[in-house]
């Protein structure tokens, strides 16, 4: 029993509530939001250290015994994800100061960001499938607020789509949970992992597993359920886009990772092969989008979809390199996507447009920005020694060890397309004839640029120092591949 693992959920909740009381006090809002996100990050790091030292942490709320109460479980994977999402939220808060606008800041922007953090951290930590639904709803509520925040015309249009898609997928989620409960009689994930292998009718469980894949697929934006993502993510301003792009789809990916390693393993030949095929189709669909547009935001948004496919392909292999690679790539992708959105946000502000064809020559006036972007772009494509490389290498290795070796070849080939799509932004925006830029005060530029550079630096450290992080990653992979560690931590506390 340890309440420590709840701190990354309670602290942002507490700060969000405090911030609701005085929405108009701009300075106080900024300071408290930064402190809230910072303290959350510290508590997440302490939690990671604790999990690393003492193994999987679990607490069942309200002192109920384990399969009956709501269990919260922090294994290495969830602790790593909580740390990463806390880092990103902290930087998004810093990046918001100069970019989001005073009007938005004074109408509950920071509380909404912190509520989103509550939902994301909660979804990563929970050990109960219905509670996962609840936390997903918490983060969706916050994201509904954020996507429509400011009330610009495209935001209103896209928020209707976003709401509709998510309400339908949430309804399906509840239905799928009800089916699962009627078959197994439990919703505690550890208990499910015990009960599901004892059930002989795997047919009905396979159907439920595919239903969950559809539900989480809506959130994670897999093929063909990603249709809502490019439009919806395009409409809100850059800090919100960075937050969504880095965190929201990853909750869906995490949920698939968790359920498809912990308990939906009764018919791997069908479910995981399906997952692998869908993952590859997701990558291909994302590649088409990433090359098709001349809009910086759209290009990076389609790269989110590609990354989702790559991560899920590693999970579908269900072997050690594949799973380790997926975890590494997941963490890398959260960080690099936030960094890239920050960078294209600066570029878009400088040119006053997001259209690549109206840009050019930025390398002469902002050389550091250009080289930072190039490093981030290489990291995204997975050029060694940057952070995209170790994860992708392991995933490809996992694919070659499994039956879906053709998938690994597709991933290798599409890496070139990812590189092309990211470098295209570099070529159009930084090379070529200089185009007149919007004058920007140096202090404002620095306020935007400093969090960005630090975030890019973190991804570089994550890639170059991959050896340092590998023990955490393989520890997380070990728990995923041996559900008994997870089960024992929850049921035998």
């Amino acid at each position, binding site marked *: *029993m340890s*309440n420590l693992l*709840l701190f990354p959920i309670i602290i942002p909740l507490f700060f969000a509530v*405090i911030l*609701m*009381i005085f929405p108009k006090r701009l300075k106080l809002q900024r300071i408290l939001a930064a402190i809230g996100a910072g303290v959350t990050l510290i508590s997440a790091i302490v939690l990671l250290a604790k999990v690393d030292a003492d193994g999987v942490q679990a607490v*069942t709320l*309200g002192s109920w015994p384990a399969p009956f109460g709501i269990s*919260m479980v922090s294994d290495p994977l969830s602790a790593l994800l909580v740390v990463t999402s806390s880092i990103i939220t902290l930087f998004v808060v810093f990046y918001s100061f100069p970019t989001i606008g005073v009007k938005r800041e004074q109408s509950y922007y920071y509380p909404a960001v912190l509520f989103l953090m509550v939902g994301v951290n909660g979804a990563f930590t929970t050990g109960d499938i219905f509670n996962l639904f609840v936390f997903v709803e918490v983060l969706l509520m916050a994201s509904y607020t954020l996507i429509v925040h400011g009330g610009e015309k495209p935001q209103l249009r896209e928020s209707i789509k976003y709401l509709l898609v998510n309400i339908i997928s949430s309804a399906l989620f509840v239905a799928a949970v009800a089916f699962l409960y009627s078959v197994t009689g439990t919703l505690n994930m550890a208990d499910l992992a015990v009960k599901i292998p004892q059930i002989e009718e795997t047919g009905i469980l396979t159907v439920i597993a595919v239903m969950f894949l559809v539900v989480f697929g809506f959130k994670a934006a897999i093929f063909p359920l990603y249709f809502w993502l490019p439009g919806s993510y395009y409409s809100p301003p850059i800090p919100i886009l960075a937050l969504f792009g880095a965190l929201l789809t990853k909750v869906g990916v995490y949920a698939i990772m968790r359920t498809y390693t912990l308990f939906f393993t009764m018919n791997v030949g069908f479910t995981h092969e399906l997952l692998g095929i869908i993952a590859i189709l997701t990558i291909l669909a994302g590649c088409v989008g990433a090359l098709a547009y001349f809009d910086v935001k759209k290009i990076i948004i389609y790269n989110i979809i590609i990354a989702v496919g790559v991560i899920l392909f590693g999970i579908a292999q269900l072997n050690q390199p594949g799973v380790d690679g997926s975890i590494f790539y997941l963490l890398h992708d959260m960080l690099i996507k936030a960094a890239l959105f920050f960078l294209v946000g600066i570029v878009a502000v400088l040119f006053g447009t997001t259209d690549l064809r109206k840009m050019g020559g930025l390398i002469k006036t902002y050389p550091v920005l250009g080289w930072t972007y190039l490093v981030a772009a290489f990291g995204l494509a997975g050029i060694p020694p940057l952070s995209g490389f170790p994860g992708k290498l392991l995933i490809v290795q996992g694919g070659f060890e499994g039956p879906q070796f053709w998938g690994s070849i597709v991933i290798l080939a599409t890496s070139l397309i990812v590189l092309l799509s990211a470098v295209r932004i570099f070529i159009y925006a930084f090379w070529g004839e200089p185009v007149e830029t919007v004058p920007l005060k140096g202090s404002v530029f620095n306020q935007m640029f400093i969090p960005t550079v630090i975030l890019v630096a973190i991804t570089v450290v994550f890639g170059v120092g991959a050896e340092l992080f590998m023990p955490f990653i393989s520890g997380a992979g070990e728990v995923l591949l041996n559900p008994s560690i997870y089960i024992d931590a929850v049921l035998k506390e």
Partner: protein
Amino acid sequence: MRTNDVMLQTATKVVTFIILMFAVHIFFAGHYTPGGGFVGGLLTASAIVLLMLSFDIETVNKILPFNYVTMTAIGLLLAIATAAASIIFDVPFFTHAYDYFDLPLFGETSLHSAMLFDAGVYLVVVGVTMTIIQTIGEDE
């Protein structure tokens, strides 16, 4: 526009108090029997909405000068604080404490820390419902 709402207004003056009393009853009935902060809050909100329908928003805001967003925040704070008190006593989060007391007039009564949590829920429900209704119902 409203020319003949004497009946409604007169009835409201009585009915509102009945609804509010019933809300209090339902609120305290909670935990062991059906009821609690959520239903109590909804009942209270419905009483206020009835007032708004039969009189108008400005009058009601004059008698009940609350900022409903702040009310929501205070309710949430109360709920979190009750749940988080378990951290200080080093028991799993959300563990509640209760005991039986002999109170004058009431006799033997069970006092439960879940009631504090429910009071938070009550404030949140009233706050959120009224914020939504005011936002939708207000004219510029």
